[in-house]
């Protein structure tokens, strides 16, 4: 190889893109040629300078891009990938994400889907609530019985889907949401319903459902939504009693932290007693620290005597 060949080959040599025999030729030549060796050194220096010039996108930009992509996908009118509207876990994940990432507008489509799902409750509890035509009928076959005449008798169950829409303040909608908040098989519907009802806690029946969900719902997302609704009633004696019980028995540290925040809005002996009891059995360091801080603020001792 002569100098011209080597100079031409140097960029590809640097990037390891030469055939092995050509690579060897470059190495042999460079060993005995000062000017080509200098050219190779310049190539390396160029690469180092360019490495330093590389921009690393900041994590916030990546996070922003991901959020915008989610939003854009929801805006898509004819997506190739369709969300399975009947998948309760999908609904739950969606609603749960919206709790932790308020920047993402998951709640709106999830709410819409929840309303569609509420159609089932409408048919079940309020057969006359809407006279709209059903948009789907789902059947399951119970029995098939042929008779002697060549005919067949088929027994089937029908579920008629109806869509109800209205404002949350509307009494019928609220009653549906209260029923949906207890829907056993669908945590997504419960999260969405409790989330929609949380601003309606001035009504005693709504507050009662919130307290009941806070104590008994197996899903922490639903319990957290219920807590949000009860925030403005944190000084109500009945609410405080429930909060104290939940604090001592709830398995979810996130729920316990939220409960502590609500309880310490009133710093009394009963609250100190509950926090002291919790410290004795709490295994989560952060929750224990929150308790200790709260007790310190209340000038109460950390232990019970």
């Amino acid at each position: 190889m002569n100098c011209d060949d080597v100079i031409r080959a140097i960029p590809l040599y640097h990037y390891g893109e030469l055939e092995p025999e050509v690579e060897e030729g470059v190495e042999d030549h460079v060993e005995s040629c000062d000017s080509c060796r200098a050219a190779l050194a310049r190539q390396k220096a160029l690469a180092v300078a360019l490495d330093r010039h590389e921009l690393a996108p900041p994590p916030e930009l990546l996070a922003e891009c991901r959020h915008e992509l989610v939003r854009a996908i929801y805006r898509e009118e004819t997506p190739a990938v369709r969300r399975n509207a009947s998948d309760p876990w999908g609904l739950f994940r969606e609603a749960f994400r919206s709790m932790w990432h308020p920047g993402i507008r998951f709640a709106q489509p999830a709410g819409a889907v929840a309303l569609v799902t509420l159609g089932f409750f409408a048919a079940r509890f309020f057969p006359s609530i809407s006279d709209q035509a059903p948009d789907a009928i789902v059947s399951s076959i119970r029995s098939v019985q042929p008779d002697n005449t060549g005919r067949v008798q088929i027994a089937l169950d029908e579920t008629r889907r109806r869509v109800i829409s209205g404002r949350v303040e509307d009494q019928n909608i609220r009653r549906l949401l209260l029923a949906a908040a207890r829907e056993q098989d669908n945590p997504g519907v419960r999260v969405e319903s409790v989330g929609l009802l949380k601003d309606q806690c001035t009504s005693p029946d709504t507050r009662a459902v919130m307290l009941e969900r806070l104590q008994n719902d197996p899903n922490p997302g639903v319990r957290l939504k219920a807590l949000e609704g009860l925030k403005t009633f944190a000084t109500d004696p009945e609410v405080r009693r429930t909060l104290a019980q939940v604090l001592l028995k709830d398995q979810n540290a996130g729920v316990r932290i939220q409960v502590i925040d609500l309880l310490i809005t009133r710093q009394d002996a009963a609250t100190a007693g509950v926090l002291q009891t919790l410290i004795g059995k709490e295994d989560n360091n952060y929750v224990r620290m929150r308790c200790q801080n709260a007790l310190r603020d209340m000038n109460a001792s950390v232990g019970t005597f």
Partner: protein
Amino acid sequence: MLQDAAGAANARAVSKVDEAAVIRAVQGGDQDAFERLVRTYDQSVLRLAMNLLRSPEDARDVYQEAFLRVYRNIHTFRFDCSFHTWLYRIVTNICLDHLRKRKVRREEAAVIDTADGPVDRMDSFEEEGPHADPERRMWNNQLSGRIESALAGLTPRERMVFELRHYQGMRLRAIGDVLGTSEEAAKNCLFRATQKMRTVLGDLI
């Protein structure tokens, strides 16, 4: 060593199988699988766009457009090339469009006027490498400006080949696949790109 190499090859093969399963799930409508797919590639896509276009706004546009195209067209992916190649065809096409449009309307000013005086939009993005020593910093700034001009002097295609090879570490054959050209043409592009840069940066390196 041999065992390590075999293990790595096996891991790659498994991960290819996993990826095929994820893609099939996406084609079947699994939204979570789509999210997994995006998260596998989106950092390198954003990095490529950011380095090519040197603008966070444009990089964000490329990201959105690329993954929305994937979302809309994933059902047409038939596994006759790797997903990486398919995705990068989309991304490089969008980036090349941006670069070509920019050539037409000339390079956007990186420095913008603000109430507090002129500000370089890229100053908020840290370049990799130490800048503690003031003299070194000044030299780096000078070098950085020259590299910027050197990169701006490349054709969109040269710029793309260079970015994919130097920063993304792709082989020239794979770059040829992505750009719909031969390995030889990609080699020529890389050669021209490095020659141009060495000419512009000659006295600094």
